[in-house]
């Protein structure tokens, strides 16, 4: 069956999950027509980019059992690669290719280096080392302002096909003008789908099985004859490369890149939350997690505003439901899901389907 092959035999295995995934897909695919306006389109694009980013992080954390805090570093390398190439070269697809290529090469080298240097040690140690390296990289990016634009970042032009002023069709379809933004959005969706399917292929390959074996019991995997350092490093490199691609997509979509949009530690925390809430060790979890998180991030504030207006007379509670405190509620959800649903929403749904 073609669907079976497309999903590498790793079907959602739960009717509810099928429904959720199809709903997300459909909503993303029709966003320009269903919800006109820039905000909805931006949110949908962000969801796509984060699906790729979170899935790549899941490849490392969920499937291989390595916690890295340097994932946004690779995300940032991708974004900066495109941004630097586009602002120094004439804006065309050639410049995009050069930027992405250079960024991929840089990520490959860096992740290989970090992996070989520090993946021999315990999980804790690796988490700390990557945290330190990522912090240093962020400082580096804001210091090299000649190339990176420092804290202000870089604004640049994108190829004409996806720039806002471009009109693909003369007449609007269903009342929506098909301009460069819409074209860019659909390209983004297409690339996301492809990247996601490739990652699904990777984790369901024999190689992916070895990664999971290492996650479950590194000692036993080693005893079976797999060199765990190689596999861990390969997983590290792969996940870094996919994160780099996600970063490139982000820069192309925003036509801007700065330290806060792609490198900051807040984003790192965000993707950690998305992976865990969605479900570690299932790539579908990244779809659910990223969608849920970004929707909450963009729309929970409105909801909280209603609550805090209603509770304006209650002193402490009022501050807890303040619109700026949305992360508090997600943080609580995160801690609860680590305790109660170690495999997140997707794991929960699959377990339910299995029991029936």
């Amino acid at each position, binding site marked *: 069956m073609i669907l079976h092959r497309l999903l590498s035999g790793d079907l959602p295995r739960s009717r509810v999950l099928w429904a959720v995934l199809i709903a997300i897909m459909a909503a993303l695919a029709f966003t320009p027509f269903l919800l006109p306006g820039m905000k909805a389109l931006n949110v949908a694009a962000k969801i796509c980019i984060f699906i790729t980013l979170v899935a790549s992080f899941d490849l490392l954390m969920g499937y291989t059992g390595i916690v890295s805090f340097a994932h946004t570093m690779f995300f940032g390398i991708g974004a900066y690669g495109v941004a630097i190439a586009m602002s120094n070269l004439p804006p065309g697809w050639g410049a995009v290719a050069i930027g992405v290529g250079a960024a991929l090469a840089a990520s490959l080298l860096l992740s290989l280096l970090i992996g070989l240097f520090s993946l021999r040690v315990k999980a804790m140690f690796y988490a*700390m080392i990557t945290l330190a390296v990522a912090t*240093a990289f962020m400082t580096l990016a804001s210091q090299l302002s000649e190339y990176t634009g420092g804290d202000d970042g870089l604004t640049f032009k994108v190829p004409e096909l996806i720039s806002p002023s471009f009109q693909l069709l003369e007449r609007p379809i269903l009342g929506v003008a098909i301009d460069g933004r819409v074209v860019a959005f659909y390209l983004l969706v297409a690339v996301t789908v492809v990247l996601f399917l490739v990652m699904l292929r990777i984790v369901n390959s024999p190689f992916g099985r070895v990664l999971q074996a290492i996650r479950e019991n590194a000692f036993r995997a080693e005893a079976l004859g797999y060199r765990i350092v190689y596999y861990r490093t390969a997983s590290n490199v792969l996940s870094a490369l996919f994160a780099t691609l996600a970063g490139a997509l982000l820069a192309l979509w925003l036509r801007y890149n700065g330290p806060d949009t792609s490198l900051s530690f807040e984003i790192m925390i965000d993707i950690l939350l998305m992976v865990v809430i969605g479900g570690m060790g299932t790539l579908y979890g990244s779809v659910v997690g990223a969608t849920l998180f970004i929707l909450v991030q963009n729309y929970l504030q409105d909801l909280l505003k209603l609550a805090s207006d209603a509770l304006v007379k209650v002193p402490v509670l009022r501050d807890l439901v303040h619109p700026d405190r949305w*992360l508090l509620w*997600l943080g*609580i959800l995160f801690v609860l899901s680590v305790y109660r649903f170690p495999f997140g929403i997707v794991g929960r749904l699959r377990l339910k389907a299995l029991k029936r």
Partner: protein
Amino acid sequence: MNATVPTSPALEPLPTVRIDKLPILLLPALGLIALPLVHSFSTWVTLTFAGLAMGMIIFIIASGLTLVFGLMDVLNFGHGVFITLGAFVATTVMARLAPWADSLSLVRNLMAVVPAMAAGLIVAALVGLVFERLVIRPVYGQPLRQIMITMGGMIIGVELIKALWGAQAIPLLLPEGLRGSILFGDAAVEKYRIIAVVVGLAIFGGMLWVLGRTKVGLLIRAGVQDREMVESLGYRIGRLFIGVFVTGSALAGLGGVMWGMYQQTVTPEMGGQVNVLLFIVIIIGGLGSVGGCFIGSLLVGLVANYAGFLAPKVALFSNILLMVAVLMWRPQGLYPVVKR
């Protein structure tokens, strides 16, 4: 770390543990290398003191983290939240005691600063007790979940702090009597830095005494070496661990107050920023080693200050370069703890 072994008088005294002196020599060596580069002796004294003060504050914060790790393999990524908490509590106390803090008399100033530090310490200890129970206890022995859960604890903690105190930076100014410098010849040394060094040394001394000369300390050291053996002898290492965790949180709270006064402002993000520094320090020192943590902290403080003076651009990366250099020399840190 000095480790004396209790002996009964009838037996031959057991050989004492040899102390590895090389890492200790790093500190004076670093100072001597910096001296000709800085050129002026008085500047060097100022820089050295600034570095020592910074190092002492980092040590106060990091010591609990490394001990908790050594004892239970628990690495608390949320350690930073206690720093922030301590500092914010101090701003409240200082604001209440503003008349004393603004007074010109040193005694009255101290009557404002000491309660502020004490409050930061106590509140951090209490929250540490709750944190250990709610966040850390359910995930003993599961490193992956531990990293995530302590991170989650930190997110929630920081958000709660923002809800209580607001998200903006709050100034935490030193009282009048503690500002300014004392001149030693040509060298100006800030009064507050002297206080930081004294407090840091006192805590280091106290810690060495507890760890080296008391029964509790003996158990902690034994627990770091081999937890199961201590348990099989009938000691409840869980209780011991709670004690160490709460002490570590309390020290982080105190360190947070001192760090806030050092920086003169307090922000909800300060804990997360210091966290990175802490990890570097405990990696340099060797995970679980208090002595290593002490030397690591001072090295970080000194290098940051010398580099900040000699090459400001390099200073931003001095910590990480220092870490790489130390790990090249000793991959397990300055004082590797035996079991790892």
